[in-house]
């Protein structure tokens, strides 16, 4: 294994890292000039520094987007299959596909960053976002516990900073701190679990662990290790009862950070969770059927799924802030997605990944709409959205596509995702053992319809509230961001009409 070959196989990550460094350097140099200007002149010239900061933001976003586009190009040129260092870096069609998906989600997060006025250091912000993207790619493409842990930490530490980034908003730091405390506690749990699994199997590569587990009997220490590892991931995907950070982080963070946490971080966490349970812990599947529970990881995940669906949907009913509502609905959606992993075979995994991918695309779009509305009305409560249809029919239309897709209305992507998941779960067990879980999920979707429709009622039926009506009404033309939102809405519609485009690709890419 020469370094040149290593560089070739890790070229995607390398391109993104280099882009992050370039963006960081540009951010640092231009920032210094800008502060020089503001120091030299009096307060009246504040807007000089402001416009220079906006220019820096535009340059940095452009370079970050360009770097991601190049990296997607290199990901397309990766070989079909390769394994480095006994699974530390694995290239399969599945990992290449999800690297591309993660980078595309990061790309849209960068587009959201462009219009975020409150970010005073865009270079640093984008560099951290790109490093988080590298973390996503490491997570997706590794089948070894050490690398998975490093990827988790790289992602986690970047996200904590991204959430706490807005120094002008006191809620941002608070959300960052809560996210940090929950996150590092849960990663300590994962780490301790990993150490026990290592102790029981003597190895850290997932395939070898699975071989080892098939031969030994289940000891209590091993069970503790597996449950602790799962706790860490349950936190990452915001499954109840480990979801408490999510509403605060979604509400307090700068919008691109919230969108990135809701999309990229979630997709990668589901990919790696699926790999760990389906590859690493395969011999300990257990059975989550109602009458025939067998100890293993699948009853644990089934309990998390049911709890997440109920808690997420019921608490979402009481929300009056759109970002908090999205956060609680994210908890419920994590529950739906877990059903696919509980069902457990190739098909279940691909159903879960299809669902989480469409969900991520939908949420990035929804946060894009929130960002545009927030810029004009300086808030994201329901009252800020009232009468959006008269202010911007296009945004209102996109938002209704996103909300209806989350609710699972045909012909949108969310409907097919749910249909695929539930049918896989029903077929997974000869005696329809997972029927109880599917029933809980259907009940949950029914409840969720109510609060998604409330959002649409606010947008379409309610009169604009006075405070907003008196403010300069028309949303300013931020063309790029509008195009991005429209593209995402079109993708959601397309994946609903032709789900095979992604679903067949996923199923074919499954190992």
């Amino acid at each position, binding site marked *: 294994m020469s370094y040149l070959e290593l560089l070739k196989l890790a070229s995607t990550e390398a391109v993104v890292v280099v882009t992050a460094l370039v963006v960081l350097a540009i951010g640092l140099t231009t920032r210094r000039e800008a502060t020089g200007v503001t120091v030299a002149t009096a307060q009246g010239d504040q807007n000089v520094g402001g416009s220079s900061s906006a220019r820096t933001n535009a340059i940095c976003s452009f370079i970050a987007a360009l770097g991601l586009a190049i990296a997607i190009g290199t990901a397309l040129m990766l070989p079909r299959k390769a394994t480095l260092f006994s699974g530390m870096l694995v290239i399969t069609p599945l990992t290449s596909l999800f690297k591309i998906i993660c980078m595309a989600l990061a790309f849209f997060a960068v587009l959201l960053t462009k219009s975020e006025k409150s970010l005073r250091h865009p270079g640093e912000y984008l560099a951290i976002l790109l490093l988080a993207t590298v973390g996503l790619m490491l997570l997706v493409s590794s089948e070894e516990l050490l690398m998975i842990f490093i990827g988790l930490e790289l992602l986690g530490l970047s996200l904590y900073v991204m959430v706490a980034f807005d120094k002008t908003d006191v809620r941002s730091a608070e959300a960052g701190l809560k996210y940090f405390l929950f996150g590092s506690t849960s990663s300590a749990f994962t*780490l301790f679990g990993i150490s026990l699994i290592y*102790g029981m199997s003597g190895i850290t590569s997932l395939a070898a662990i699975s071989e080892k587990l098939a031969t030994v009997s289940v000891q209590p220490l091993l069970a503790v290790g597996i449950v602790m590892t799962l706790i860490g991931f349950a936190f990452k995907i915001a499954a109840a009862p480990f979801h408490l950070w999510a*509403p605060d982080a979604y509400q307090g963070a700068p919008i691109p950070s919230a969108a990135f946490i809701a999309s990229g971080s979630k997709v990668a966490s589901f990919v790696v969770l699926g790999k760990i349970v389906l590859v690493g812990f395969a011999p300990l599947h257990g059975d989550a059927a109602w009458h025939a529970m067998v100890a293993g990881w699948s009853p644990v995940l089934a309990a998390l799924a049911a709890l997440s669906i109920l808690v997420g949907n019921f608490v979402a009913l009481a929300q009056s802030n759109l970002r908090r509502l999205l956060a609680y609905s994210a908890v419920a959606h994590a529950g739906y997605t877990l059903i696919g992993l509980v069902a457990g075979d190739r098909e279940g995994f691909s159903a879960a990944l299809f669902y989480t991918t469409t969900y991520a695309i939908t949420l990035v779009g929804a946060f894009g709409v929130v960002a545009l509305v927030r810029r004009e009305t300086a808030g994201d409560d329901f009252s800020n959205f009232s009468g959006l249809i008269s202010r911007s029919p296009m945004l209102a239309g996109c938002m209704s596509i996103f909300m209806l897709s989350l609710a699972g209305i045909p012909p949108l992507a969310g409907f097919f995702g749910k249909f695929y998941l539930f049918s896989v779960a029903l077929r997974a067990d000869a005696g329809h053992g997972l029927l109880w879980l599917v029933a809980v999920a259907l009940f949950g979707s029914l409840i969720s319809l109510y609060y998604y429709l409330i959002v649409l009622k606010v947008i379409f039926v309610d009169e604009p509230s006075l405070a907003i009506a008196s403010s300069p009404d028309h949303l300013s033309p931020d063309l790029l961001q509008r195009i991005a939102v429209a593209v995402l809405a079109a993708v959601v519609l397309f994946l609903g009409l032709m789900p095979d485009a992604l679903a067949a690709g996923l199923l074919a890419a499954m190992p």
Partner: protein
Amino acid sequence: MITLGDYLIVSGILFAIGFAGVMLRRNLIIILMSLELMLNAANLSLVAFSRFRVSPAGLPNYNAQVFVFFIITVAAAEVAVGLAILVALFRARQTTDVKDISELKF
């Protein structure tokens, strides 16, 4: 003779102390220290497993020892990020008590 079980018990106790500290203490600095304790509990158990899993050739299993070096580095990075967030919050609120940090609520 100290056995593997003894090390694991100590490591379990350390982890429990750390977790209790995170859950029960109100001062953010102490919570950060407790987090470190949890990570180090994992380090201890990894090293113990490595030492007691001797290969047929008589060598310890070095995987875990490499793992521990990575964890030490990651722990340092985690403290740096944690303290940075803490400073940002302290500037806004002049407090390090978690009870006072309740702007965002249900």
